[in-house]
């Protein structure tokens, strides 16, 4: 086999058949084919080398370059939660518990989904210890130099920002924000974020329209979002303190994939199904998710400790 040719030897087929859902209109077997396996594959053709390429007029063709495809795979996983309610609750309580419990299950679904993505970022991304702080620990508390270092890494890897800039307005005490990457941090380090050089707290953005409640501040090219459930590792610093991991990323760095018709299932099982004497009913919530880091070049992050 000739060298330099992109062929199925160096670019293996994903599956022995190719699914073309859009071209076939009605046959149902086609949909069944699309449900083979529980692994979702995302692929990217890596860009070609820019080395060489000049023709010297001799008639000799440049050597072909083998195209490289990177496959990013993720396993589809199903999560569920259930609540069983005795009939006496619904009989004696007047606050519409079934409706409220359904809302509670809906909240569980989104919270669980959030934690699953947090776990992905915490487990499968390379982090760099912050060293620009003054608490004497390794890692230190977060500093401007550490944040700038991550911006340098992302820009060096041609990452694209996630959020548009907010234009300056004629309002006292405000300043514009630049187009920004995203950073996810623990609420435990908000005092340290306030101390970072050049921090722009959320209230100082020129325009509050469309801002998320969880947004806390902007530093350099990053907008920081905080959560009480953000990732942390107890006792992992040089001095045995809790280490907080802060994923910092741009566009298409990670993926959260939902299964068709399975992204959020809420169900009710009536008492005559759940209980032999029809006294207990059941509510459940269920969803399927696959998660993956789709491009390590466009995600990085910091390990930090708290200053206090």
């Amino acid at each position, binding site marked *: 086999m000739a060298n330099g040719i992109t062929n199925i030897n160096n670019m293996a087929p994903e599956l022995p058949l190719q699914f073309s859902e859009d071209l076939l209109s009605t046959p149902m077997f086609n949909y069944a084919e699309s449900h083979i396996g529980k692994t979702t594959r995302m692929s990217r053709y890596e860009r070609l080398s820019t080395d060489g390429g000049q023709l010297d007029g001799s008639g000799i063709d440049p050597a072909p370059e083998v195209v490289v495809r990177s496959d990013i795979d*993720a396993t589809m996983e199903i999560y569920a939660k259930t609540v069983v309610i005795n009939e006496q609750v619904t009989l004696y309580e007047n606050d519409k518990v079934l409706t409220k419990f359904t809302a509670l299950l809906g909240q569980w679904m989104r919270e669980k989904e959030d934690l699953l993505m947090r776990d992905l970022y915490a487990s499968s991304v*390379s982090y760099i210890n912050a060293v620009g702080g003054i608490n004497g620990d390794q890692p230190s508390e977060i500093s401007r130099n550490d944040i700038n270092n991550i911006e340098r890494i992302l820009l060096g890897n041609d990452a694209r920002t996630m959020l548009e800039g907010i234009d300056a307005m004629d309002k006292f005490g405000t300043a514009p924000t630049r187009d920004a990457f995203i950073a996810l941090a623990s609420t435990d380090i908000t005092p340290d974020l306030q101390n970072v050089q050049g921090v722009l707290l959320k209230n100082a953005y020129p325009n509050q329209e469309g801002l998320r409640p969880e947004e806390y501040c902007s530093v350099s090219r990053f907008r920081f979002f905080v959560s009480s459930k953000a990732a942390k590792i107890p006792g992992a610093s*040089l001095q045995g303190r809790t280490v907080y991991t802060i994923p910092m990323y741009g566009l298409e760095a990670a993926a959260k994939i939902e299964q068709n018709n399975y992204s959020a299932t809420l169900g009710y099982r009536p008492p005559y199904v759940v209980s*032999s004497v029809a006294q207990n009913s059941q509510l459940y919530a269920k969803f399927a998710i696959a998660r993956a880091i789709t491009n390590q070049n466009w995600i990085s992050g910091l390990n930090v400790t708290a200053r206090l």
Partner: protein
Amino acid sequence: MAFTILDGGSFTSTGAGVKIPLPSSADYFKVWNTTQLAAAAPNAVVGAEWFGPKFGVGASAANSGIRWKKAGSSALVIDSFSTATASDGFTYVVTSPNVEPQAANAITAITAASPAVVSQTNTYSEGDFVRIYNTTGMLQIAGMVFQISTVSGSGYTLTGLRAAGFAAAATAGFTRRVSKNAAVDPEYLYITEITKATQAVVRTSVDPSNYYVVGNKIHFSVPPSFGMSEINQLTGTITAVSAANYTLTVDIDSSAFTTFAFPASTASPTAQLFATLSPAGSQTSFNPVSQVQTGYEFQKTPFHTGQFTPYMFLAGGADSPAGANADVINWMSYKLEV
């Protein structure tokens, strides 16, 4: 009893700790060491029980539970794993763990040798993962996770750390046992060494074959403090994996790169740490003649949950629920209705 759930099973102990997934969670857990039960006068735990939070003030503490032991005779001694003659017991884990609930443990020394050897009184098992921190000397490894081997009650070897080039040994420090699997796998790994070669050989602090196979791609994050800055932010494809040496070979020519080296201990805490690698997908190959596709493993390559929760961790050893090597253990889990 519509919602009471019972589960059970059996395993043959290797002497190491065992994790038993409990999809329905548990309120009560029991094990019988059938091997030691049949022995006439063993000096070993023959049975154990654990009571969950549902039992309120009667619940078992972390790493404890009720211990049924034959202490060199046929008579049973029933006490708790956390008595004065303490041994490791049950630990019920409900969230993705970074640290397995076991007390911090003091190190007395880490040799500056290849591989490094740790002196520490411990109850760890072969292949356990520990995070080393608060070291005196060898500050450059404080915070890293290592897989341990050649474990005895007084120490173990860090196969993934070749510390002969370090300026001095560590004279103190602490460890905590951590989970072998992150919440999501494949996970990032700590790099301890990269050779200068046409195909760089990368040593990691734990056995990389648990997470990566030939054909997987890995992304390098190597801060300038580790020397080989040329490899920082590069992505390579794995061409070989060695479980014995904790190494991966990648298709990156590092022969002209700057030498990889840990920063000096004296440079901490201002030296940027750590050198790590992280999963960046896969690049499989296919032989159309043999119809063989290589470079992929469904159990490892796709991003997936690394550690199922909740689970019950049974500590290993003759005085613990998971028993000594070759012991046959029966277990039962109970989820109560009310």
